C-alpha cells in the first residue's frame, strides 16, 4: 500500500485492471430521503494507502455519503465494498469492526467520560473481554485492560494531547484538543480506513497546519488510508492525492489536485454558489 502513497504520478486513474483492488469502492450509490435525492449514482474509489478528499458546496451530500460508508444510513441503491466485503446492510459496529474509523463534523465525543476512557472505547472492537470475564475480573481481562490503557496513552501522545488531560472529562477540553481526541478515539480501533469529516473546521491557521501534518504522519506511520471531507482548499490541495467533487448529490469531477483546480465545472460550482449567495 505504501507503493500508492509514494507514487507521485498525477493524471486520471485508469479504471480497474492494472490497479490493485482499492480499499473502498462505491458503486452507483444513491440515497433518497422521500423525494429528496441526497446522493445520486456515485461511483467512488479509495486506493489503498492514499489520502482522498471529498469536496463540494454545503449540502452537496458529502456527510450523507460518509454516513453510508459507516452504516449509519443504508443506501437506497448501489453497493459499497470495503476491503473485499460488501458493507450494505451491516450495522455500524460491524463496519467499525471491519476497520472503518471516523470523526464527526460537529465533534461528538463521550463528553462525561474521561479522555483516556474515550480512547479506550475506541479500542472496544479490538478487545476480547466478555461481560462475564469482566464481571469476574479474570487475570487476562486485567492484563488486556492494562495493555489497552497503555496503547491509548500512546495514541494520545501521537495526536499531541498532554498527559495531564488523561483523567479530565472530554467535554472540558479546548476545541482543538477535542478534535485531536476524536482522532485518537478513531485510531484506537486500528482502522484500515480513516474517515475525517472536516478535521480542521473551526481551527486557526496554526492548528490547521499542525492537523494537516498530523494526518499525513498518521497515514505514513500507521499504514492508514484516509478519506476526508474538507472545505479549506489549502488543506485539500496540500494533502490529497485524489479529489472528488460532489455537487447537488452527484459526482461533478474527480482527479488529482491540479486537475480539479483547473476544472471549469468545479470553478463554476464554487463561484456560482458564491455569486448567488452574495
Amino acid at each position: 500500500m505504501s507503493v500508492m502513497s509514494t507514487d507521485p504520478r498525477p493524471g486520471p486513474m485508469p479504471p480497474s485492471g492494472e490497479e490493485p483492488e482499492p480499499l473502498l469502492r462505491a458503486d452507483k450509490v444513491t440515497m433518497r430521503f422521500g423525494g429528496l435525492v441526497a446522493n445520486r449514482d456515485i461511483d467512488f474509489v479509495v486506493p489503498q494507502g492514499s489520502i482522498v478528499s471529498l469536496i463540494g458546496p454545503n449540502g452537496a451530500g458529502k456527510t450523507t455519503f460518509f454516513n453510508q460508508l459507516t452504516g449509519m444510513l443504508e443506501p437506497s441503491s448501489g453497493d459499497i465494498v470495503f476491503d473485499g466485503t460488501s458493507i450494505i446492510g451491516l450495522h455500524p459496529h460491524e463496519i467499525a469492526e471491519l476497520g472503518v474509523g471516523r470523526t464527526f463534523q460537529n465533534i461528538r465525543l463521550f463528553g462525561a467520560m474521561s479522555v483516556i476512557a474515550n480512547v479506550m472505547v475506541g479500542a472496544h472492537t479490538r478487545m476480547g473481554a466478555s461481560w462475564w470475564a469482566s464481571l469476574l475480573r479474570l487475570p487476562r481481562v486485567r492484563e488486556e485492560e492494562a495493555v489497552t490503557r497503555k496503547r491509548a496513552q500512546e495514541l494520545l501522545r501521537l495526536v499531541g494531547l498532554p498527559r495531564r488531560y488523561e483523567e479530565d472529562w472530554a467535554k472540558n477540553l479546548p476545541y482543538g484538543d477535542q478534535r485531536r481526541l476524536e482522532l485518537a478515539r478513531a485510531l484506537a480501533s486500528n482502522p484500515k480506513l480513516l474517515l475525517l469529516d472536516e478535521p480542521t473546521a473551526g481551527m486557526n491557521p496554526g492548528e490547521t497546519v499542525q492537523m494537516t501534518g498530523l494526518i499525513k504522519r498518521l497515514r505514513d506511520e500507521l499504514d492508514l488510508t484516509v478519506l476526508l471531507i474538507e472545505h479549506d482548499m489549502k488543506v485539500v490541495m496540500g494533502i490529497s492525492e485524489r479529489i472528488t467533487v460532489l455537487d447537488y448529490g452527484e459526482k461533478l469531477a474527480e482527479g488529482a489536485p491540479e486537475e480539479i483546480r483547473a476544472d471549469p465545472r468545479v470553478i463554476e460550482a464554487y463561484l456560482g454558489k458564491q455569486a448567488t449567495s452574495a
Partner: protein
Amino acid sequence: MGGPFLRRAITTGLLGGIPGVHLSLVGMVTALQTRELISGVVTIGTAIPFIFIIIAGWYAAGPDRALGIKPSAIQALGLGALAGALGGAVLAAMCLFITAVDVRWILVNATPALAETLQFDQGPVVGSVLQVAIGAALGAAGASLRVMPASVGRAVAVGGVVTLIVSVMEPFVGAVLRNLGLKDLQDVLYEGGGLTIVGWIVVYGLVAGGTYLWSTRGDRVRARADALPPDRRRVAKIVVYGLLIAVLLLLPQIVGQRLSEVLGTIGLYILLGLGLNIVVGFAGLLDLGYVAFFAVGAYATAILTSPASPAFSPELSFWTALPIVIIVAALVGLFIGAPVLRLRGDYLAIVTLGFGEIAREVFKSQWAAPVTGGAQGILSIPPPTPFERDPQSIYYPILFFCILAAIAATSLAASRVGRAWNAMREDESVAEATGVNTTFYKLLAFALGATFGCVAGALFATKIGVIYADSFSILVSINALALIILGGMGNIPGVIVGALVLVGLPEFLREFSEYRLLVYGIVLVVMMILRPEGLLPSRSRRAELHEHFDDDEEMYAEEAGEETGRPVVTA
C-alpha cells in the same frame, strides 16, 4: 457594583423563607416538635425553616458566574445577612398573618400555636424581631462559608451537617451505645431524642476537626499510602476491608432487633439501587418500571419455595430456588428490554413505567391467580435456611448479596463493558459507530439490572414471608431512582450513601414518615440545583460540576471563562 448581587440576595432571601413557610403549613414543623435537635435549645421542627435560611445565605454570597465577579468578604457577609434577614422576615410575616387571620379552614396546620412556636413564644413583636435577627445571623453564617478558606469552610459545613444527622439518628446511635455498654456516654450525649449541647460540641469538634485535618493533611496521607510498597499496600487494604466486614457482621448484635430490621430494608434498597444504577447510571436507559423485576424475583421465589403457593407443589429451599429465580429474572429483563430497544430517553421512561404497572396488575389479576394467588398473594414463604425469619439473622444473607452486587458492579464499571455502557449513555449512535454493539449492551444492561432487582425481590419475599401484589407499587421504582440520583448517578458508594440517607433516615425520624414524599421532592429539586452530581460523585464528575468550596481564584477564573464561551480546561 453591588447591583446584581443585591438583587440576587433579595430574591434568594425571599425564596429561602418559602420552604420554611411551606413546611410549617403542611404540619412538619408541628409534627417534629417532639424531637429535640439540640436538647433544651431547639427542636427539629423549629430548626427546619432556619436551615433553609442558612442555605439561602450561603447561596446569596456566591460569585456571579455570568458577570464573572465575586463579592468581597465583607460584601459576602452583608449579602448573606440580608438574605437571611429577609428569609426570617418571610417567616415572621407568615406567623403574623396566621395569628391575625384564621385560615385553618384551608390550612389546618396554620394554628396560632404554630406561630408561637416559630416566634420562640415571645409574642408577635419580639418574636418577629427575633426571627429577622436570627435569620440575619444564620444567613451571615451561611455566607461565612464562602469567606473562609476552602478547607475551613468545608470542615465547618461538613461538621454541621454530620452533627445534625447524628442528632437526628438518636434512635440508632443511642441503641448502639447502649448495646456497647456505654449507657453513661449516651446519657451525656443525648437527651430528649437529640444531642445535648455537650453532645453537639463533642461530635461537631470531632467531625469538623477530622474533616479539616483530612482536607489539609489528607493528600500527604494518601501520598504516603501510595508510596507504600505494593505488598504492604495490599496488606493495609486487606486490614481495612477486614475491619469493615467485621463491623458489618457484628452490626445486628450491636444495634438490636428493631434497627436490624431497618438495616435489612436499607440492604434491599442498596441491591435495588445497584441494579438500577447499571441500567440508568451506567447505560443511561431511564427505566421507571424497575419494580417489575423486584416483583418477579419475589413472586418466583414465593412460587418455588412456599408450601402455600397455588401452582408449584414441590417446595424448593431458598438456595435451590435462587439460581432458577436469577435465570427467570434475566429472561424477563431480556423480554422487557427487547421491545424497547429502539426507544430513547423519555419514550423509554414512559414505556418502562407502563411495564412496571402491568407487572403489578398481572400478578394481582384473577387470570394469574392460579399461579400468583391473585389479590390474596402468597403466604408462608420459608426463610433462607440456616437463617431464620428474624431481622438479626436475615440481615446476613442480605449483607452477603449486597457485597456480591457491589463487587460485581464495581468490576463491570471499570471494564470494557462499563465503558461501552457509558459511551452508549453519552451518544448512542457514536458508540455504535465506534464499534459498540449497542443492541447487545442494552440487553445486557437490562438483564443484569433485572438480576440484581430479582435477587432483592427474592430476599424481600423470604424476609417478610408474605407477598401481595400491592407491595410492588411504583413507589419502589421511584425510591430506587431517587436514591441513586441523591447518592451520585453511576457511582457505587453513592448508591450506598443514597440508600442510607433516603431509606435509613426516615426510619430514624418516624415523625416525618408522613412527609416522606414531600421531602423527597424537595431534596431532589435542591440537589439538582446545588449539587447535581449527587452526594458522592465519582472524581471526574466532581471536577466537572463542583464549585462549592473549591472556587479559589484560579478555578473561578476558568469557570467564568466557560460561561463566556471561551474554551477552558479544568485541570
